[in-house]
């Protein structure tokens, strides 16, 4: 009776002790120096592993920072607080973290955009996109099936009742996972300070856009002429703002015939007012 318990105990315990001893010796023998700085940097990072900094993981970024290969203000999730913490560890100036927000460059809601067929498949934009580019006549617009919503680790992007995705400025960290997964490439990362945005991704000619979407860019070039900073250009029949020079003046907004250009602050204040 005693033996039935004692022998297994001794055998397994003995094996455990023996292997443990060998491993303990090996860990001494093969000890690898870890940069203590790297460990400190890693502890200061939020550990979201979202890749927003351009590295595969927080560990990889911590290593790069500790070795001086990366700037300390790359962590978008941690923002200014983490940048300052890293600055304290590395003994440098924090600088400012440029926060970028994912913007869905489309306002082609169910009311605005014309559908070409009824889609009854899997609720996944990539699947829908495989069926002749999705159910919208516009082949550049948001399909609104929420693939971005599902990959977002921060719950920051949602498909609205009108059938297009919209990002939540408060929650978005600019990690870019939705940007990568979107089959239409309709999501862009834009500096949060830029408030005037052309919400269209359609490169069709104006006449075609008129037929398929009420709010699409018809390439009339009025905004290009209105812009005092000359930062709006026509790219294949789509007006595009070079955000580096944009001053949020909004001069392009009033004359846009299809109301494709919007000022985010005005939208937000309208929502608050209503």
């Amino acid at each position, binding site marked *: 009776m005693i033996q039935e318990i004692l022998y297994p105990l001794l*055998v397994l315990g003995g094996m455990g002790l023996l292997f443990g001893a060998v*491993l303990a010796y090996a860990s001494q023998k*093969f000890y690898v120096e870890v940069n203590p700085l790297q460990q400190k940097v890693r502890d200061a990072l939020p550990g979201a592993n979202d890749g927003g900094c351009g590295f595969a993981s927080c560990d990889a970024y911590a290593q790069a920072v500790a070795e001086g290969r990366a700037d300390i203000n790359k962590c978008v999730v941690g923002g200014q607080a983490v940048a300052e913490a890293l600055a304290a560890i590395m003994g440098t100036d924090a600088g400012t973290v440029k926060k970028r927000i994912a913007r869905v460059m489309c306002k082609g809601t169910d009311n605005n955009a014309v559908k070409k067929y009824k889609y009854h498949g899997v609720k996944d934009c990539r699947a829908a996109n495989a069926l002749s580019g999705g159910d919208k006549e516009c082949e550049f617009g948001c399909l609104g099936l929420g693939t971005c919503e599902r990959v977002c680790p921060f719950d920051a992007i949602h498909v609205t009742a009108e059938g297009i995705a919209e990002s939540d400025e408060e929650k978005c960290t600019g990690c870019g996972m939705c940007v990568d997964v979107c089959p239409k490439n309709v999501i862009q990362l834009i500096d949060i300070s830029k408030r005037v945005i052309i919400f269209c991704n359609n490169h069709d000619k104006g006449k075609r856009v008129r037929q398929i979407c009420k709010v699409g860019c018809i390439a009339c070039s009025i905004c290009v002429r209105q812009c005092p900073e000359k930062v709006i250009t026509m790219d294949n029949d789509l007006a595009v703002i070079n955000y580096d020079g944009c001053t949020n003046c909004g001069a392009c907004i009033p004359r846009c015939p299809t109301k494709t250009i919007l000022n985010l602050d005005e939208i937000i204040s309208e929502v608050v007012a209503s």
Partner: protein
Amino acid sequence: MLTNLLLILVSSIFVNNFLLSRFLGECPFLGVSKQVETATGMSVAVVFVMTMTAAITYLINYYILVPFGLEYLQIIAFIVVIASLVQFVEMVIKKTSPTLYQALGIYLPLITTNCAVLGVALLNVQNPYNFIEAVVNGFGSSVGFAFALISYAGIRERLALAPIPKALEGFPSALIGAGLLSLGFLGFRGLV
């Protein structure tokens, strides 16, 4: 005697290939086969772990477990051996080749739960092998594993450059490739 060992070797490398005939250890097979270099590193680690596992588990089984009538502890005892060996290999690789360590990533600790390694240990005690035969079988199995993994990595390196239909890019083509390679190994059936 020698012919017997040769037969075991050939059978474990080609006929009963763990990856392509027994379908054990598929996780690293699909995971680390994107580059020949990492596949080779993984293979060397598996060869070491598998051969050592075959030797140590044989000794443990016939000199400790059987005399005490503890055969029912085989799985747990073998897992302890494998886990320790993998830990050991991980330390050695981390020390000797940091780049390989980075490239193997999660798959290195996963050898611990690689069913091919445990499979070698368990199949060895099921067959009436003596010590040398058991070690040769473990070594042959791991060489077969390495053989399949590296040749498959070679195929995938070429596949990455080939113009294949968009829908088949990445994993679909990898799985089809694995299936074809395994069909190729089917040709060795009946060799031994």
